[in-house]
C-alpha cells in the first residue's frame, strides 16, 4: 500500500469509515537473549478498522501485541502512533495514550464484583487522590458518579447487567472474557487490543463475542487489533490480516488475499482442497 492510499479515508462495503493510519510498526525486531521472537516486521493499523494478527503457536503474535501495548521494547525498529514516533514507554503511559487491552489468560480481580472490576478501567480518568476518594467528598463524589455512568453504559452495551454485583470468581469463563472486554472499553480507548478473545469458548459464546466486537467497532468507532486462533472468526471479523510465522511476517492483506496466499496456506491453514 502506498502512502497516498493510506492517507485517504475509505468507506468499506458495510458503511464503516476506515480512516488514516493511526499506528505503524516499522521494522520491529524483538529478541529474548538469543531467541528472535519478532524479526523485522512492518505493518500498520488504520483508524476504525479491525486488524487481525494470526499465526501458528509460537509465531510471535502475543509478543507483537505486547510491543504495541508497550510491555516489550523492541531492540530494533520504531513504533509510530498518530504520526509521532513513540519513545520507549511503560505500559501505563501507553494506556494513557488511549490504548486498552484484554489478556489471553484472564487478568481480573477475582474477589471483586463485576462492577468494581469494570470501574478499575476508569483509573486513567480519575484525577482525585486517595485521601479525597476515601473521604468521598465533593469532587471525588462527582467524579465517581461520572465514571459509574460510563461503566453502566458499557455494562448495558455488553448485556452484563444481571451479574453487575457478582464476584468475578463465580462467573463462567465466557462471561469473564466479557467482563474483561468491559473493563478495557470503559477506558474509552482509541485502540483496543484483544489477545485471543475467543480462546476456550463454545460456539455460542464465540458468536456472542464476535457480535460484541463488531458492535464496539461500529458503535464507538474503536480501532481493534486482535489475535485469534479461530480462522472462521478472524476471516469474518477483520478488515485486514497480518500473518506471522516463526517471528516473520508472511502475509498481509484482506482476508481473501491472505486466504489465497500460498505461503500462508502452507504455513498455517494447511493445503487447500479443490
Amino acid at each position: 500500500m502506498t502512502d497516498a492510499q493510506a492517507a485517504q479515508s475509505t468507506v468499506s462495503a458495510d458503511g464503516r469509515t476506515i480512516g488514516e493510519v493511526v499506528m505503524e510498526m516499522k521494522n520491529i525486531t524483538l529478541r529474548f537473549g538469543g531467541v528472535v521472537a519478532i524479526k523485522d516486521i512492518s505493518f500498520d493499523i488504520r483508524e476504525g478498522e479491525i486488524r487481525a494478527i494470526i499465526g501458528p503457536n509460537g509465531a510471535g503474535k502475543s509478543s507483537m501485541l505486547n510491543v504495541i501495548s508497550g510491555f516489550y521494547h523492541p531492540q530494533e525498529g520504531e513504533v509510530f502512533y498518530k504520526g509521532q514516533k513513540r519513545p520507549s514507554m511503560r505500559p501505563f503511559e501507553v494506556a494513557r495514550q488511549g490504548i486498552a487491552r484484554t489478556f489471553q489468560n484472564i487478568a481480573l480481580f477475582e474477589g471483586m464484583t463485576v462492577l468494581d472490576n469494570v470501574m478499575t478501567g476508569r483509573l486513567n480518568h480519575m484525577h482525585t487522590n486517595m485521601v479525597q476518594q476515601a473521604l468521598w467528598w465533593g469532587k471525588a463524589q462527582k467524579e465517581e458518579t461520572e465514571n459509574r455512568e460510563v461503566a453502566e453504559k458499557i455494562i448495558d452495551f455488553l448485556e452484563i447487567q444481571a451479574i453487575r454485583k457478582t464476584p468475578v470468581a463465580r462467573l463462567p469463563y465466557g462471561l469473564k472474557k466479557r467482563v474483561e472486554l468491559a473493563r478495557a472499553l470503559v477506558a474509552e480507548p482509541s485502540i483496543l487490543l484483544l489477545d485471543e478473545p475467543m480462546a476456550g469458548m463454545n460456539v455460542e459464546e464465540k458468536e456472542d463475542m464476535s457480535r460484541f466486537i463488531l458492535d464496539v467497532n461500529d458503535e464507538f468507532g474503536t480501532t481493534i487489533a486482535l489475535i485469534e486462533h479461530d480462522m472462521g472468526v478472524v476471516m469474518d471479523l477483520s478488515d485486514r490480516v497480518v500473518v506471522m510465522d516463526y517471528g516473520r511476517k508472511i502475509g498481509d492483506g484482506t482476508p481473501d488475499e491472505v486466504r489465497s496466499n500460498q505461503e500462508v496456506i502452507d504455513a498455517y491453514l494447511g493445503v487447500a482442497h479443490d
Partner: protein
Amino acid sequence: MAPTSHDVGVFASIPALLDRNAQRFASKSAYREKEFGIWQSWSWVETKEEIEALALGLISLGVTPGDFIAIIGSNRPHLYWVFPAAQMIGAIPVPIYQDSAAEEMAYVLDHCGARFVVAEDQEQVDKVIEVQDRLSQFEHMIYLDPRGLRKYDHAKLHEYSHVQAMGRAAIDELMPELKARKAKLTQDDVCVMLYTSGTTGKPKGVVLSNRNIIETSKNSSEFDDLGPGDEVLAYLPMAWVGDFIFSIGQAFWSGFCVNCPESPETMVTDLREIGPTYYFAPPRVFESQLTQVMIRMEDAGRIKKWLFDTFMAHARKVGSKILDGETVNGWDRFKYALGNLFVFAPLKNSLGLSRVRVGYTAGEAIGPEIFDFYRALGINLKQLYGQTEASVFITQQPDGQVRSDTVGVASPGVELKIAEDGEVFYRSPGVFEYYYKNPESTASTKDAEGWVATGDAGFIESDTGHLRIIDRAKDVGKMEDGRMFAPKYVENKLKFYPNILEAVLFGSGRSECTAFINIDLNAVGSWAERNNIAYSSYQELAGHPKVLESIRAHVEEVNESVARDDMLSGCQIHRFVVLHKQLDPDDGEITRTGKVRRRIVDEKFADIIAALYDSSDEISTRTEVTYEDGRKGYISATLKIVTAKTVTTAAPKAVAAE
C-alpha cells in the same frame, strides 16, 4: 382519590383514562424502568406528554384511523406507551410475542395487515426486514434501541425518539387533529387486538373493545381492591392478554405504577428491589423459584437446614389458616411469628415477595405442594381462570376461599354454565367482539346470546360454587375399554415433582397409558452434581440410568395416587420414555405460553409412541430441532423405554389392604 364505578360511563377509552390520571394522580409515578443500574421513572403527567408526542409523531408519519400498529419487544415503558398513543389516534395496537421466529411474525403481520411496526431493537427489526417483502401493507417501522441500526436504510425506518421529536415539533399544527380523533373514541371502538397462541392451528386475532377492557379492569380492580398505591412488575410477554390487562387496563384504571425490569435476566433482582404489591406469575415461575429455594437449602448448613425444616413444617400446618383469618391458638401463632422472624420474612424478602398483597397464578394447574408452600409463608397467592376471549377473567378466588384444586368462583359480572358434555361456557362484559377475519371461528366459539365456549371440561362444586377444571374438553377421551382418559390430570401430578418439567400422556383409544417425560435440567443437574454424576449434555443426563430410576419412582407414586381416583384409575402409566430434548416452542411442540400441542407431538414423535406400545426395550430416533435464529438441525438418540409398576384396580379391595 381512588377510581369509582361511576368512571365507567365517563371514561370510554384508555386515552380518556390517561387524561384523568394525569389530572388526578399528576406527579405520582406511572411507569418505572431500570436502566444503567438506576430506576428511571415517569409520572402520569410526564407519561401523558410522552404518549402524546408519540401520537403526534405517528399522525405525521401518516397513521389513519383503523390502521394496525404492531408492537414487538420486551416490557419497556416506551413500548407500553405505543398502546394509548395508537388508540388516541384511532389506530389499533397489536402486540406480538417477541420471541416469535420471523415466519410466525410474518403470519400475524400479514393477517392484520399492519401498516406500522414498532420494534424494540435490531433483533426484532431484522426479523421484520427478513419477511417484509411478503407484507403488502407494511409501510414504516419504528425502533426503540438504535444500537447497530445506524447503517440500515432509513427510508422506511425511524427512531422512536425522532418520531416523538417530530410530534413535538408539530404540536401546534397537529394537536387539533389529535384532539378531534381522541374525542371520537367510544366504548364500542376496538381497544386492542391480541393473537392467541392457540394449541391448535394458526393464531387467531381476538378483537377486544374499549368496553371489554374498561369494564373488566374496573370489576377486577374492585374485586381485589387495587388502588393507586399498588406496584406491579411487568415481565410477562406484552402480547399476552394478562399483561395487557395488568399493565395497561388495570394500571390505567387504578392508577398504579408499572415497573419494567432492566433485562429478562435481572428479573429476580428487580423483583426484590421493587417489591410488588400485586403480582402475577404462571405456575412455572413459582415452581422454579421453589426449586431454587430447595436446592439452596440442600446446600445450607445444618442449623439453617433445621430451622428451615422445623418452621416450614409448622407453617404448612397453620400458615394458610392464619392467612385466611381462621382461629389458631396462641402458642401456634407465637411459633409462627417466631418462624416469620427467622425464616419466612427473610425468605420472602429474598424472593422479592415481601409486600405482595394480591398474588395470582393461572394458565396451568399449580401443584398443591407448591401452592401451599407460598400460602404457608403468608403470601396471599390465589388462582384465577381466564382466557384472551374473556379479557382474562372468568373465575377467581376471593380472599379467604383459596384452595389449590379449584379455580374459584365466577368473577364479578361473569355468568357460568356447564354444557352436557362437561364443557364450561361463560358470558361477561369482557367477552371479545370477534375473531379478526375469521367469522367461522367466531360463530363456533360465541353463540348469539353471547355465551362463549372455553374448550375446557369442568364442573361446579355444589357446596362451594367453585369451578374445577378437569382438562381441555377435546383432550378428554375414552380408552379402549371405555374408561375416561384425562391426560392433563395425570401430567399435572407428574409435573408437581421438581425433577419433571413437562409430561405428555398417551392412551386415548388404547388399552394402556404411556408417557413422555422431560426432566428439569436445574433440579436434576443439581442432584447429579451432589451425587457425583458426570454428564456433558441434556441428552446424556436425561438418559442416565439413575435419572431413569428416580423418574420411575415418581411415576409409580403417581400411579398409586391415580389409582385412588375411581373415574381415572385407567390413566396409570405403564411405560414411559425420558425425552432426549426439551419440548420447545421454537419447534412448535408447546405454545409460547407453555402448553403442549398434542397433535404436533403425536406426529413428530410417532416412532417413539409406536415403540411405547410394541414392547420394544429401546428406540433409536432422529429429531429435527430449530435453533433460535430459525436454522434447523437434527439430534439423534437412543431412548430407553422404562416400565413402571401399576396398581391393579380390578380388585380394589386388595389395594385397600396394602
